[in-house]
């Protein structure tokens, strides 16, 4: 290992600079302070001045500290023994276990050659009807959950993690509160999936630069597992914290912000992570489900806005449920009624159309207009729809959920009112529904 040892000259924010030569962009440095060691990455070289982004933060760093360059960029461990383990944003175990003896792999690698991509066409079952039936998650999809702070987004994420068909679950936590971190850990342990989980956790109290490394480490490991034929589900929460970390660092680098303080390359930064989602022909795949909290419930805020331009749809979490309006899986058309049951497409559309009518009837109530008989029917339907399908506790396979859709329809409507095609009605309309109406 080529080593250069030098001393720090300047410290601002999470940035330190020093004199050194022969150092490459992106190279890793180890800063040795009395009683602690932290890593830094070269982000700028100019003449013999080297600028470092210090992962552990610069608090307590002294001009007296020694810096050693390691001759390679940031790496992460990759291997089977990572499963079941928890690491921080620098890749150091925080679960009390030993450092895994595994291969070091670089993070933030090059993009997948678009010419090698294939059209996504496999569904991932989550057993959450609002996802499986109404906005199916597809292998290799990248999808965020747009949520106001305070909504149960981590609960949804954990549930998808536990229930989704995937070989490996990689959780990247950014700015995670201690409670949330504990929640994930306990939930995965209690449900017995922990042996398929790898967690990279940056907690709210950890140094901000480590936050930036989390998605890169999570996705570098995911990529290698996918190349080895494994189906990987990557959960990232919360990408708004990640973006805020970018903002903080770019401002301390005196970059000119583009929009509400965020750097002009926010889009590219987010995209280079989300685009790691991939289905590798004949091998494994990576699907990304992320959380993007929306400050002030404002979807035009730069983080959800840039995210929406990158991802393949979004789930809106509103009032504790996945809202069927605004939520969209752009890849669902690749699987709905193609790999799922033939009635999927039509029943999904009919249910949503009627539910949207129900909302209009509710508006009428709000406006003080008179309700018709039809409105009453819609209102009753909407209530059942929300209770039996939308509630987050509902946990049933898609086939059962489709049957339940038919059942709810038959309970409230005549077949003709639903606009469903005759051949589907013949085959699927329940002969005996659990309600007053049932004739087809």
């Amino acid at each position: 290992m080529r080593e250069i040892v030098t001393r720090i000259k300047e410290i601002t924010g999470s940035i330190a600079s020093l004199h050194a030569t022969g150092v490459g962009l992106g190279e890793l440095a180890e800063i040795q302070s009395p009683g602690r060691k932290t890593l830094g990455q070269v982000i700028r070289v100019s003449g013999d001045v080297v600028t470092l982004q210090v992962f552990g933060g610069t608090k307590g760093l002294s001009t007296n500290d020694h810096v050693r360059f390691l001759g390679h960029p940031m790496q992460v461990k990759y291997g089977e023994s990572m499963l079941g383990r928890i690491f921080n944003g620098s890749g150091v175990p925080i679960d009390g276990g030993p450092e895994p003896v595994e291969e070091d792999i670089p993070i933030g690698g090059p993009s997948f050659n678009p010419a090698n991509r294939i059209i996504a066409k496999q569904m991932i079952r989550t057993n959450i009807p609002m996802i499986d039936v109404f906005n199916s998650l597809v292998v290799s999809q990248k999808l965020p959950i747009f949520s106001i702070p305070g909504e149960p987004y981590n609960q949804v994420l954990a549930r998808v993690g536990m229930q989704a068909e995937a070989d490996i679950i990689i959780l990247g936590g950014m700015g995670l509160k201690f409670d949330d971190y504990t929640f994930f850990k306990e939930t995965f342990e209690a449900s017995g999936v922990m042996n398929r989980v790898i967690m990279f956790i940056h907690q709210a109290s950890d140094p901000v630069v480590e936050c930036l490394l989390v998605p890169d480490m999570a996705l570098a490991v995911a990529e290698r597992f996918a190349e080895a034929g494994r189906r990987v589900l990557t959960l990232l929460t919360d990408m708004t914290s990640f973006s805020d970390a970018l903002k903080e660092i770019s401002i301390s680098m005196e970059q000119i912000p583009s929009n509400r303080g965020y750097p002009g390359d926010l889009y590219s930064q987010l995209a280079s992570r989300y685009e790691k989602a991939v289905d590798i022909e004949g091998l494994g795949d990576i699907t990304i489900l992320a959380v993007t909290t929306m400050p002030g419930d404002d979807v035009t805020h730069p983080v959800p806005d840039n995210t929406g331009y990158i991802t393949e749809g979004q789930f809106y979490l509103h009032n504790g449920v996945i809202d069927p309006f605004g939520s969209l899986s752009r890849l669902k058309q690749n699987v709905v009624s193609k790999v799922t049951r033939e009635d999927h497409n039509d029943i999904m559309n009919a249910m949503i159309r009627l539910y949207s009518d129900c909302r209009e009837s509710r508006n009428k109530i709000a406006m003080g207009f008179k309700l018709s008989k039809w409105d009453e029917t819609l209102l009753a339907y909407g209530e059942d729809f929300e209770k039996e399908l939308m509630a987050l506790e509902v946990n049933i396979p898609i086939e059962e959920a489709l049957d339940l859709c038919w059942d709810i329809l038959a309970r409230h409507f005549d077949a003709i009112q639903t606009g469903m095609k005759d051949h589907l009605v013949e085959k699927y309309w329940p002969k005996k529904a659990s309600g007053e109406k049932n004739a087809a």
Partner: protein
Amino acid sequence: MSVSGKVVAAYGNMITASFETDVQQNEVAYVITGDRKLKSEVIRVRGTVCDMQVFEDTRDIKVGDPVEFTGNLLVVELGPGLLEQIYDGLQNPLPQLAQQSGLFLKRGIYLDCLDRSKQWEFTPAAKVGDSVQAGDVLGTVPEGIFEHKIFVPFDFIGTAKVKKVAEKGSYTVAETVAEVEDEKGEMHNLTMVQEWPIKIALAKYKERILPVEPLVTGCRIIDTFYPVAKGGTACIPGPFGSGKTVLQQLISRYANVDIIIVAACGERAGEVVETLREFPHLKDPYTGKTLMERTIIICNTSSMPVAAREASIYTAVTLGEYYRQMGLNVLLLADSTSRWAQALREMSGRLEEIPGEEAFPAYLQTRIAEFYERAGYVTLEDGSKGSVSIIGTVSPAGGNFEEPVTQGTLAVVGAFLGLTWARSNARRFPAIDPLISWSKYVEQMKETLDKIDPNWVAMVKDAQKMIFAGDEIKKRMDVVGEEGTSLADFIIYLKAELIDAVYLQQNAFDDVDAYNTMERQVYVFKKLTEVLRKEITAQDKEDARQIFFRLTALIKNWNSSEWESDDFKKFEEQINEFIGS
């Protein structure tokens, strides 16, 4: 002679290098780091150093790394074999790259843009003794259904005498097909391949003329209401998920042009995959060949290097200009120009230039204008006509059109097809909002359009008026309720809704409805006008609503019936009965 230099500073994708003797603004240089050569472009010169944007990941670059200046601007290779290719923003062929370097893109690998082993059937056109100049035709080779012209290089200076021309036969692009002697008596071996700098417009034509021929996209709301001309420009701004990409994909399938260039600029890789996997199997509605045979894909998606993204739209438009030189009509679809503008912004930030609005550089507007100005309808030296049309999407931050890229684009394009969430959330696709969109080509092409029908433009304007009137009534109705609206007004509102439902909206997933020929649009639109002019007598609003329900269903069925099929005739008859009654 190449000049050498050394890296003196590096930050992000920008490096500063010292150089010996001279460098040229925008020349290509290679940074040599380890055993890799990384392509870069000089973007600023300051005394003895210059700033360069690197088209690759800059990891490992060190102060002192050697730099090789090439003396050449950033160029593309032009010649037979461009069609059906999938290139990155610098014209590196991605499938070949995949063969060579596996699943992931590796930096520092630059392959031949055109296949050097493929044989082309050359037929000479020039003769020994001819005097030729840049842009003159030496011969032709068939490329798919096109006659690909082999030109004297467009940067050839002065007049030359043809000394030798290859005989009819098979040659590779690199073989000499003509030997010419220039004015100084120097000999030049000309091949089928030449280079052209991407940031300079390839403008070897006699004159530019006003575009007056409609470019039919197959999309009714565009072709009928907000048409685009061959050689014209249009932009499609819209918030995320409003349907920009789907609309462009539809246009790429159905537009009545010879050649389509798809520039996937900083968007999702997954979307390009649909095009590149499906086009080889889909039929071109005009020639019956596969769509791939008329398509070039430039693919520099969002996770690929940002500087190459900036170059990608110039690469795309240069290839377009090249095929225009052959007298062909080319359509460039760029998705999304905002990502290109952001690439400019990133670089401008690194250069520490004084920022304009939203930190975009002050020259953003000029760059946008320069780009769209490369579109055009031209008369070539041999009298034939060719065109490059550009339709670019814009991805405005927060879906707000008052931002610099949208505004800068609106100032220079001929048509504005604005997508809104109001329409896409209501599943009214394509979500082009008729209340905000416009096209200057309606007036500009009036003479051509009125050949369709003497009253064509007038009819279109009438329908437009009705859409606006319907919207006014709707807004009032939202306040006072249906009760407070007169039956007459209510019927106008329903008529506007009818235009929307059966004409503006088009089902992209219905094999028939997805695409309408101009012939069909004219036929249907005239019928629709007839329906709209008809006085509707209804007892009350509910009755009126029912009438329009039936009418809507009828015309929708008509829309999804094959042109002139039995069903088509059947539904038309039913519509006629309806109007008659």
